[in-house]
């Protein structure tokens, strides 16, 4: 009987649950590249092609190859197992779209702030957001564009005023395994964070 098949499907299907990781950072830091590298589906992206009008607003002199910027949101997906799916949501890169951040961040397991070391100042707003509202654990991931970093993680921590307990790691956004390391680091930190923030009473 067909309906029986459906009801057993339904029972196992109902166990499915999901979680979310937020990928934040400055314009052109490598957020979309990271989502792309780790996602099992082509990321669903809503990007507006930069027009000449937007060049005045976005400093793209250092990343001349980049012709698009994320204006809405993009996301990828990782199926952990039969019951658990994890989504990665990129935050809008430009300050004028940050009204969307609260909605995106709500209910996230944690966040990754992707930092382009050549443009540290661009990451400040993202770091400041997570340092200020402290609602979810976050880590900082330094994207190695040319295979090397201009600053040590200590220098970055000082420059961006990252709290001492927040992990700072370096990675290559183009590499799937390297991106996976970032996600693992975030989950380890989130677990540690939960343990230490449990009420003593």
């Amino acid at each position, binding site marked *: 009987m067909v309906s029986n098949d459906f009801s057993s499907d339904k029972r196992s299907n109902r166990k499915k*649950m999901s979680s979310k990781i937020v990928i934040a950072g400055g314009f052109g830091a490598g957020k979309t590249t990271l989502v792309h590298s780790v996602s099992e589906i082509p990321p*669903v992206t809503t990007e507006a092609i930069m027009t000449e009008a937007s060049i005045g607003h976005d400093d793209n002199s250092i990343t001349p190859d980049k012709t698009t910027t994320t204006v809405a949101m993009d996301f990828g997906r990782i199926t952990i197992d039969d019951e*658990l799916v994890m*989504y990665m949501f990129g935050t809008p890169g430009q300050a004028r779209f940050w009204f969307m951040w609260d909605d995106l961040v709500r209910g996230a397991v944690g966040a990754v702030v992707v930092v382009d070391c050549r443009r540290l100042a661009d990451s400040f707003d993202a770091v400041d957001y997570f340092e200020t509202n402290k609602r979810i654990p976050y880590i900082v991931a330094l994207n190695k564009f040319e295979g090397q970093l201009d600053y040590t993680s200590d220098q970055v921590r000082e420059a961006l005023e990252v709290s001492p307990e927040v992990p700072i790691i370096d990675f290559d956004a183009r590499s799937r395994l390297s991106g996976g390391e970032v*996600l693992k680091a975030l989950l380890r930190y989130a677990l540690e964070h939960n343990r230490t923030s449990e009420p003593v009473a």
Partner: protein
Amino acid sequence: MSFRRRRSNRVRPFTFTGGRTRSRHPLMVQTLVSTSEPGQEPPGTLMPESINIYKLCRETRSLAEVSAELNIPLGVTQVLVSDLAEQDLVYIHPTITGSSPSENQVLERALRGLERLFQ
């Protein structure tokens, strides 16, 4: 300018939602939705957009995926899915936020899963 043109093409949300802008169920972008009785045809009283959601969610999908695949703005999708849930036509799956210690087990499972997938 292309951004502005895209906005003007949007269907006004209130035409779908009767003026309501909030959903009654906690629906986040990552929340999974599935049709309660996937074998059944959607009730004929539903609006075309809701019928499309009903049909699409015969396979479990996140709210963001529903919104992207059907090209319905996220906020509108939220309200429509919430209405379908109110009528028990769709099931809203649990969302793991990691904010309560009871969810640590799931986070540990996610970490083990990532260790398996990215090694």
